[in-house]
């Protein structure tokens, strides 16, 4: 499964001079959607004896989140990191992850979160699927059946869900509804502390340098800004009856009722 480490997003600051988001000093966590992906992978392992490998692209700090994933029940973790990977957009990220997964070799199911909390593009999962030539199902809310070479699942849509079936290997992205993630045990965390996590760079992956980092990234973020501020408006006073009458009159005056 693919896991991303993200900063807690509630207090992001914008570095106006650098025109980028300043994430220094923020607590770093496993992307919340990826905890569902990880939990689902571990449940499959418990039911079928599969092994779970966690792949993440990112800097040294990511090891801490990978250890957390191992403590939850993953078997192996690999980190993809290289100075050349810096500045990768979702397409370049998907390319790098796909090369990492290819190097790992044998896989039946790749699970991603529906989106990352920081950039929240939701682009990386389908990008990895395309790069590996795999079928995909996005926004999965339930795996109904999983056996050799076959999967049947439920996919969340705007007004309900779909039931789909297809061949393995496949890539899926999962939504919050799929499960309730467990917490890492203390014992697991202690054990995971001692694990050495392999780090693979550009040459280990045999990756094409023109497809990673800025040169492999068709998009650029030209500007970041805080959203337009919303100032508090007016508190409507009076008895409940008066408050309600005033409010309805105001809404009617603006033709929204």
């Amino acid at each position, binding site marked *: 499964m693919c896991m991303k480490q993200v900063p807690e*997003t*509630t207090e*992001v600051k914008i570095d106006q001079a650098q025109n980028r*988001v300043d994430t220094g000093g923020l607590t770093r966590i496993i992307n919340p959607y990826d905890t569902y992906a990880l939990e689902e992978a571990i449940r499959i392992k418990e039911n079928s004896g599969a092994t779970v490998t966690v792949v993440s692209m990112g800097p040294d700090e990511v090891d801490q989140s990978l250890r957390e994933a191992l403590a939850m029940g993953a078997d192996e973790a690999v980190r993809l990191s290289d100075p050349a990977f810096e500045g990768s957009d979702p*397409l370049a990220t*998907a390319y790098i992850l796909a090369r990492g997964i290819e190097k790992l070799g044998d896989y039946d199911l790749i699970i991603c979160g529906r989106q990352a*909390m*920081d*950039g*929240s*593009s*939701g*682009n*990386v*999962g*389908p990008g990895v*699927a*395309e790069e590996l030539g795999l*079928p*995909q199902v*996005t*926004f999965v809310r339930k795996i109904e059946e999983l056996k050799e070479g076959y999967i049947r699942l439920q*996919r969340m*849509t*705007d*007004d*309900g*869900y*779909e*039931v*789909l*079936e*297809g*061949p393995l290997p*496949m890539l899926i992205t999962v939504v919050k509804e799929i499960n309730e993630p467990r917490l890492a045990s203390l014992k697991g965390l202690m054990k995971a502390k001692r694990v050495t996590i392999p780090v693979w760079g550009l040459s280990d992956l045999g990756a094409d340098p023109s497809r990673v980092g800025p040169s492999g990234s*068709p*998009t650029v*973020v*030209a*500007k*970041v*800004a805080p*959203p337009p501020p*919303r100032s*508090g*408006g*007016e*508190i*409507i006073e009076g008895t*409940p009856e008066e*408050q*309600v009458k005033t*409010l*309805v009159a*105001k*809404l*009617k005056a*603006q033709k*929204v*009722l």
Partner: protein
Amino acid sequence: MTQEAKNIWVLVDHRGGKVANVTLEALGLARKLADASSQEVWAVLLADDAGSVDTERLIACGADVVLVAEHPKLDAYRDDPYTDVVTHLVKSYEPAAFIIGATSSGKSLAPRLAARLRTGLASECVDLEWDGEKGLVAVRPMYGGNVLATVETPEARPQLATLRMKSAPRPEPDTSRTGRVEKADLSGLEITDRVKLLEAVETGGGEVKLEEADIVVSGGRGVGKPENFALIKALADACRGAMGASRAAVDAGWVPYAHQVGQTGKTVSPKVYIACGISGAIQHLAGMKSSDIIVAINKNPDAPIFKVATYGIVGDLFEIVPLLTEEIKKETA
């Protein structure tokens, strides 16, 4: 793809002959961009039988050309056939930009397409502009709505964007507009189809869709228990709107997850958002901050929701909400 790529495409998201509102919103927006840059707007319609879709209406809403691709494998949205066919169309006609509604199918197709075409995609945009040199300039929220980023695709074409529902006004259909319908040639195209759709289940049961509603009435922990959500529902019905909820109410099991508004739920941008018994945590605000008018009903005058509310009522929701429902029924009867 070359820099000579031209015209702005909009994917027609449709089911059972009904075109999604976000497609019309995207057509209206594309019209604006195309007028500013002397380009055409193309509505791209994939179907097994396009006859059920009203192409005149697509033209009235801004399209110059409706490009129709018909194939038995395009009976319902599936990633494989849609990606294959759209890729083929893009390579044949070379559009400059392609706008896709951020629906559950649009958000699945767009990234797959971007990877296949090796082009840039800006996801869940809230605004799009046209720049003479850069082409499509996309504005999209990041970090749970705390940051607005401007995303550009300087070289690769087409520039892809998914557009969030209700981010652009729905255009008034102009029946005097003229346009043409063009049939795409799919002969000889190999179409993969690995995942089979067994069943599509609608759970909303005819309710107004949260993301498409003009008025959303949401309840939070202040509602107290599941039965009390009937009050919230009654107000939503009186407004002909949809019902939302905070995560606290969803986690407590009072309301299904499909109603959750916020960072880990849905993003809504209605004309009026009425928050009842919701404190206004930043993760909740992330999902509703861009509503035109925000009304807050909360008994705690210091609740953060009042900092973003257009109109605030400090009071007990059990008193205010039923009165409000009655008053609205009376005034809109």
